[in-house]
């Protein structure tokens, strides 16, 4: 019996041995698996019982700090 491969596409979320992975570009024209990211920022803050700062609140608290531009 012929083996039928599972078809995956970039953006798919897969689970292997209980671990979740995102199917992502490998930056070399191929694809690879990256440990999954499943929660948005809003969902994280909801889980913590809060909400995201507004841009104005962020600038007030951190806008004066220097950045090294690394990332």
């Amino acid at each position, binding site marked *: 019996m012929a083996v039928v491969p599972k078809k995956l596409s*970039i*953006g798919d979320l897969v689970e292997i041995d209980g*671990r979740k992975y*995102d199917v*992502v*570009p*490998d*930056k*070399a024209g191929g694809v*690879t698996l*990256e*440990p*999954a*990211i*499943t*929660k*948005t*920022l809003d969902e*994280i*803050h909801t*889980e*913590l*019982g*809060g*909400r*995201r*700062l507004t*841009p104005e*609140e*962020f600038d007030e*608290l*951190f*806008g004066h*700090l*220097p*950045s*090294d*531009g*690394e*990332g």
Partner: protein
Amino acid sequence: MATSGRREPRFAVRISASVWREEVERYEAVSEARLAAERERPHLERDGLAVGQVEPCAEFGPEGTRLKGLVKVYVPISGAPPSERPYGLVLDGGRDEHGPYLALIAFGERHPERPATRSVYERAHRRLHGRYPDE
């Protein structure tokens, strides 16, 4: 609420179980990265971070990341030069009934050795925008 230290305001650091699992526990239990994060966690949760310990992320990063509105701290958290601190925590500012806090959203290598490995900045970008910069 931002708490007043002796010299500068400090922010509570909140770490959700799901983010810790996705960002730190993705590493093997004995990996340097995971051990580095585990060493910092008790201090972060007990003492938070002073304003002067964090740095805004770049609005336009060299890997195509766009992280305006997020802050970062290099790990190990110390006064050592950045070149001696290979990992990074990226945090997002939040607010609840107690005031502002910082929520962990990404942890990982700042400059991965393997080109295909995503940096902490790329993972933060994915968390913020729903896709990696090159997707």
